[in-house]
């Protein structure tokens, strides 16, 4: 049962990446690979500041700004230098590997005996239950902020930029600036996942971000499938489904391990699972004919 509680906690932590990828993929139509780098960057900044005993009100803004800068750089490279979005993301992700190593000074930073978000408040005696409530609150706040943002005039303009650039330009929006802002926002959210996971697992490792983008993509794809199947149009419900997608994803991995699959096959299970979800709508459309 503990297995599944951990899956739930991880799912909540990864919901920030899912929201970030949701913004970059769905709203901007830009697949953003910067994620691998900005996730680790978030974890690195967190670990460094925690081991220097900085309080949460310093660490959180630092993580958000760090992720935001990474995303903004990808945005600048894509819009101003007209470089393909995928390549721009890869370039920044690659550069961030060195930046993260340089910041940490070593390849791995343990977070034992440092205060963390999870020791901040004491809601329950059981540490896992405590983490659950704190994460739930944290994720709820982020979701409320993003949901509100998407409903504002700025948010609608952001959603339109990914849909019809010609339209939104003729309606007065500087699409270059909008894309940069959006990528900054998406990567700030990704960095927050790094912040949460590094504290949950108790260490930051330079390679923890490798391949992490697939978790974000998989979560969003699960959400998309549910949104299309249930014909959801509400922004709030769509965001809640994104969170659900992140949690479902982790549960599938937990089930895989629980039924005794060798952990070395975890990545291939991930790939096959994502493939299944993507193909599901296409198969059902064919039988509908």
């Amino acid at each position, binding site marked *: 049962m503990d297995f599944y509680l951990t899956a739930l906690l991880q799912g909540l932590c990864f919901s920030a990446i899912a929201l970030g990828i949701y913004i970059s993929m769905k709203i901007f139509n830009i697949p953003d690979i910067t994620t691998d780098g900005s996730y680790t960057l978030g974890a690195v900044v967190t670990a460094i500041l925690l081991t220097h005993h900085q309080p949460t009100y310093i660490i959180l803004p630092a993580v958000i700004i760090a992720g935001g800068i990474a995303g903004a750089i990808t945005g600048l490279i894509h819009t101003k230098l007209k470089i393909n979005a995928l390549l721009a993301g890869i370039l920044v992700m690659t550069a961030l590997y060195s930046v993260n190593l340089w910041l940490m000074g070593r390849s791995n930073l343990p977070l034992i005996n440092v205060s963390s978000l999870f020791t901040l408040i004491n809601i329950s005696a059981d540490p896992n239950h405590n983490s659950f409530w704190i994460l739930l609150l944290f994720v709820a706040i982020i979701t409320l902020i993003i949901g509100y943002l998407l409903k504002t005039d700025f948010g*609608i303009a952001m*959603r*339109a930029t990914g849909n019809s650039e*010609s*339209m939104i*330009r*003729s*309606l007065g929006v500087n699409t270059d600036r909008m894309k940069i802002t959006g990528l900054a926002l998406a990567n700030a959210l990704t960095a927050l996942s790094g912040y949460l996971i590094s504290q949950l697992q108790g260490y930051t490792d330079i390679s923890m971000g490798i391949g992490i983008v697939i978790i974000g993509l998989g979560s969003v794809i699960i959400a998309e499938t549910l949104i299309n199947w249930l014909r959801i149009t509400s922004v709030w419900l769509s965001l809640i489904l994104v969170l659900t997608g992140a949690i479902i994803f982790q549960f599938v991995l937990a089930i895989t391990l629980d039924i005794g699959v060798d952990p070395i096959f975890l990545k291939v299970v991930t790939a096959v699972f994502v493939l299944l979800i993507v193909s599901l709508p296409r198969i059902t459309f064919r039988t509908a004919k």
Partner: protein
Amino acid sequence: MIDINNVHKTFNTGRANQVNAVNGIDLHIKQGEYVVIVGANGSGKTTLLDMVAGSVFPGTGTIEVDGKDVTKLPDYKRSRWIARVFQNPMSGTASDLSIIDNFRLAAIRTRSKGLSIGINDTFKNQVREKISTLGLGLENKIEQPMGTLSGGQRQALTLLMSVMDSCKVLLLDEPTAALDPRSAQVVMKTADELIKDYRLTAILITHNLKDAYNYGNRLILMGEGLIMKDLDAKQKSTLKQNDLFDWFS
């Protein structure tokens, strides 16, 4: 209202596929004029419109809108005065956003897109009222995504959206090219009414010679990047519809 001074535009200069799209055009459009531009494909009509809209910059020459030099001003900055209806119904609206979301964006075309929620019941009723003037029953569907509507419906809505915020110039680039005759009629009629009601300065590019004959108070024939004929309201009224066909033979 619009002053185009000795404007030239060449694409792929110096290369084998060089295109001299616009070869020296002087055009002065007064406030309230509804100019119809016709011409063969490749005559430079769309390039000229793109330069007024700001999606293309002239090679040489200047363009002024409402007295301001906008020659090098990017398109998204010209939206303060200019609203545009594209040839492709998909280009003027956002498919995944609802009708009301699209109209909200149009209503703040000249303003900055801030962090407040602008869609409230008053706004929704305003939009419903406006849409009902089309007589297409769309006022009951404002929460539906734009993508569920037909091309003709989207073009008609794009036209209404153009006057949601203050607008001085309306650019219509073959707005009915992708539409069936009935939808085309709705779009052209709506455009005509809006131009009259809001006293807009308008430029219409069309291949439909019937529309060119029936609408507008100034008619321009373009060819090879130049203005071949420029008829004012009086001269236009003496034309017969067949005369337009003769221009192209």
